[in-house]
């Protein structure tokens, strides 16, 4: 058992790529938590996708022991968090398990959108915050300017921010001292009934579900019978331990400590993040406050390119869902694409990550349909339906009105690009809420419809600002607007996978852009193909893909027969990448490309 005053729990938060995981590496290294020969870069990013993309997706915990200058050895539990906005939920729940945060800011870049978002969450969680200026080894680093910026923009004292280079190791001992001297120790009562917070859980092929816990009061031991207050499930504790960062068994965990347990739990779905764990007998009865569950905000259809892969896709999706409670799925049939799944994600990066894993780890080629947000469709009879898929839009005659999700977006951008950013937001039906300056950077806050953002807003933002803008958002609830379902008809047949919800005022423009795009994306056929966009039965835009008139090889003699055959084989392979709609073949890639709008 560790005395509470010798424990420090903290999360490392920052804007994406500012060096959280690298700092975690140095802390692990300097405290000899891992043998030198086992060290590797960003060692907590253990998922393939994380290593490949160089980003953190899952929050990770490590317990390190640090002999401080005061002569005592402290137990430090650090949680490395993801920087990307899609995984903001991981950050917020991690923060509930600790008392302080290291706020890492890249000294060459300064405060960015997620820096702000994270600080606000840390303040919400009553954290003590230690600012850390990273990457001071870079020639472009301007620690003084950034220190000033932190004070101006965020409004926290940065005078004793620690200057470090997580890359070279400079300043790391100072970080360790700051953790011990500036962050508070946890509190808790060892003799009270057990209360532990279920921080996270994941599925391990060998161990089953591994549950990450933070003990608030009481003591938990291997072999104890525990009960989850929220779900009511009871289990025997098979294994208890801490991450160093490898799993290491431990006899007990007391107040203030963070560790894991396994308890023959079959599925991640049987655990609820934020739940309170207590003893089955003589346990606590009042639960901890708990967290708001994460909600998927972006939905899209995933269909196998080869319809024979449907069962494999089902298996793969179910396996992934076991380990990712924020990802939802239900079966979907599309007239155009056959059987597939309608899946919900935290954001586009989350969508991409899941799709990537399905394609690579499970070898299934996928067609992804246009991402859509969840609309609230209010019917004339007073009821409300959640609409996850534009194809399911009820008949207009029974619809009273439709509400769409809105977000509050914060964008930080160098002055010279401000005009472009404002235009982009305005074009996306944004309402400006705030505009302030911090040095040569502007901070704009916009109220935007989520559906204008999910698809390519971030790409557009990056391109109009040459990558200098940063962006973060939070959900702001639903609001009514004049929304309609736009259908696309190819050769007079509606293609359900291309239906989308649009604002009435932009329907025509969207429809025209869509038809023009499709005209480029669909190869010409032997007949002419009308491409139309329609609302209800009314056509609002139309293009005609002219018929191919000539496609014949001029010369074909003995030697050309072989060449011709190869050409035909190539064509056959190409056809496999198409979907048949009536007589028309549409390339798979068209389903996504058609929705990317320029400007």
């Amino acid at each position: 058992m560790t005395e509470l005053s010798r424990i420090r729990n903290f999360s490392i938060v920052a804007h994406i790529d500012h060096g959280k995981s690298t700092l975690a590496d140095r802390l692990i290294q300097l405290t000899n938590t891992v043998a030198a020969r086992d060290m590797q870069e960003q060692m907590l990013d253990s998922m393939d996708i994380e290593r490949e993309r160089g980003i953190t997706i899952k929050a990770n915990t490590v317990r390190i022991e640090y002999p401080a200058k005061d002569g005592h050895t402290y137990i430090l539990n650090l949680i490395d968090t993801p920087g990307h906005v899609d995984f903001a939920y991981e950050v917020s729940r991690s923060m509930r398990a600790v008392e302080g945060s290291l706020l890492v800011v890249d000294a060459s870049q300064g405060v960015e959108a997620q820096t702000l978002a994270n600080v606000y969450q840390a303040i919400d969680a009553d954290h003590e915050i230690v600012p850390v200026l990273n990457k001071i080894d870079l020639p472009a680093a301007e620690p003084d300017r950034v220190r000033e910026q932190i004070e101006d923009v965020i409004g926290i004292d940065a005078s004793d921010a620690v200057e470090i280079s997580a890359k070279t190791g400079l300043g790391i001992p100072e970080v360790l001292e700051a953790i011990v001297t500036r962050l508070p120790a946890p509190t808790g009562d060892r003799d009270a009934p057990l209360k532990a917070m279920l921080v996270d859980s994941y599925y391990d092929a060998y161990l089953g579900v591994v549950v990450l816990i933070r003990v608030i009061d009481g003591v938990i031991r291997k072999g104890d019978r525990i009960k989850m207050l929220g779900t009511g499930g009871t289990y025997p504790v098979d294994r208890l331990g801490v991450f160093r960062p490898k799993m290491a068994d431990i006899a007990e965990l007391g107040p203030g400590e963070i560790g894991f347990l396994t308890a023959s739990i079959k599925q991640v779905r049987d655990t609820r993040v934020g739940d309170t764990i207590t003893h089955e007998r003589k346990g606590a009865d009042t639960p901890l406050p708990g967290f708001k569950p994460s909600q998927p905000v972006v939905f899209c259809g995933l269909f196998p390119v080869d319809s024979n892969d449907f069962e494999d896709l089902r298996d793969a999706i179910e396996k992934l869902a076991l380990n990712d409670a924020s990802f939802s799925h239900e079966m979907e049939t599309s007239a155009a694409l056959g059987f597939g799944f309608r899946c919900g994600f935290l954001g586009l990066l989350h969508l991409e990550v899941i799709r990537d894993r399905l394609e690579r780890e499970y070898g299934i080629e996928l067609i992804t349909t246009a991402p859509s947000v969840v609309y609230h469709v209010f019917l004339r009879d007073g009821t409300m339906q959640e609409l996850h898929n534009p194809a399911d839009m009820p008949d207009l005659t029974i619809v009273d009105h439709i509400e769409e999700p809105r977000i509050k977006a914060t964008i930080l951008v160098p002055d010279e690009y401000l005009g472009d950013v404002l235009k982009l937001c305005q074009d996306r039906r944004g309402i400006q809420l705030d505009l302030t300056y911090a040095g040569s950077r502007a901070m704009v806050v916009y109220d935007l419809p989520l559906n204008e953002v999910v698809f390519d807003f971030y790409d557009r933002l990056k391109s109009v600002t040459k990558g200098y803008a940063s962006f973060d958002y939070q959900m702001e609830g639903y609001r009514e607007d004049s929304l309609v379902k736009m259908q696309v008809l190819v050769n007079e047949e509606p293609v359900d996978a291309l239906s989308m919800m649009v604002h009435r005022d932009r329907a025509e423009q969207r429809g025209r852009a869509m038809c023009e795009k499709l005209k480029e994306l669909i190869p010409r056929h032997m007949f002419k193909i009308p491409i139309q966009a329609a609302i209800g039965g009314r056509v609002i835009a139309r293009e005609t893909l002219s018929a191919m008139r000539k496609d014949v090889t001029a010369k074909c003699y003995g030697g050309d027969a072989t060449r011709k055959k190869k050409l035909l084989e190539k064509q056959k392979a190409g056809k496999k990448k198409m979907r048949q709609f009536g007589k028309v073949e549409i390339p798979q890639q068209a389903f996504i490309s058609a929705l990317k709008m320029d400007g």
Partner: protein
Amino acid sequence: MPADGRTAPAVWQTAGFGIYVHWPFCAAKCPYCDFNSHVAAQIDHGAWADAYETDLDRWAALTPGRLVHSVFFGGGTPSLMEPATVARILERIAQHWHFANDAEITLEANPTSAERDRFSGFRAAGVNRISLGVQALNDGDLQRLGRLHNVAEALAAVDMARAEFDRVSFDLIYARQDQTEAQWRAELSTALSVGMDHLSLYQLTIEPNTPFHARHQRGGLHGLPTEDRAVRLYELTQDLCANAGLPAYEVSNHARPGSESRHNLIYWRGGEWLGVGPGAHGRIEQTVGRIATAALRSPDAWLRAIAAGHSGLEEKSTSNRREQAEEYLMMSLRLSEGSDLGRLCDLGYELQQDRLAELIADGLLERQDSQLRTTARGRLLLNAVLSELLSD
């Protein structure tokens, strides 16, 4: 095998047996040409004649008892061969096989004076048909095509050839840069007024790995026709030729009925042929099945391989019945007469009836008794029609 126990006639008996001899050298390389043709400083004519003989000996062992319907000297520029080489080849062929009574022996010739002088030598060697690469009847365009002759020389060569040989044909390339319909109408009318029995009229194709292709990729080579103009030029060609009594019997080939090139018909009707010389392809029927062969493309490599007693082949593969049927459809649908569905049936091949019905309903294919052929519109879309018909 038919029910009465007779053996069905072999492919070579119904669709012909031919020998293609490839001469890989030219005086200069034309910028649009992707044939296996090379410019060589020196050519050892004796060594080449030896190699052709050796190769023929080897082929003869594999294809005994055939009746030779056609020999075709193609290139490159076979009119640069020494007549003696042509003579040795034809003699060797006669030693191995019998010639059919009306055997066609064609030689491709370029219409420059150097080649014209050899016409009588070729005739003496046994050549009875000449195919001249005239390409254009417009001096400016001949230059743009990188040709070494002018219109006057070409027409003189045609006259000389007709004086020497019973059967003469020439090739034109159209749909050239900046060519208008009116210009092509005039040019083709001139060509038809010469009174030929056979013409090959190809739309200019920008082939990969040619200087024309490189220029085109760089955004050069202006004034090539749009698809619509290419269609109009093609239709104009069909009309003018048909009116002059030379209807198309294949996508790009026109003849007075009875004057079709027998050699090319062997390819399109799925007959049997040998590919002799570098880069030549062949199709022969063996007990294991129909074999597709391709010789080494490099002239030097081929010559050395043959001299060393090797086959000189780069590829030799047996086609299964499905592949044979598909190849037959690909080739025979080029012909006005179309494909013989009986032949497909013999190969155990079944067309996808729904696709076929749709292509017929769309006016791209038509069927008469056991022949399946393209309509005028379908022929212009043959590649797309085939991809529809053959896709699985």
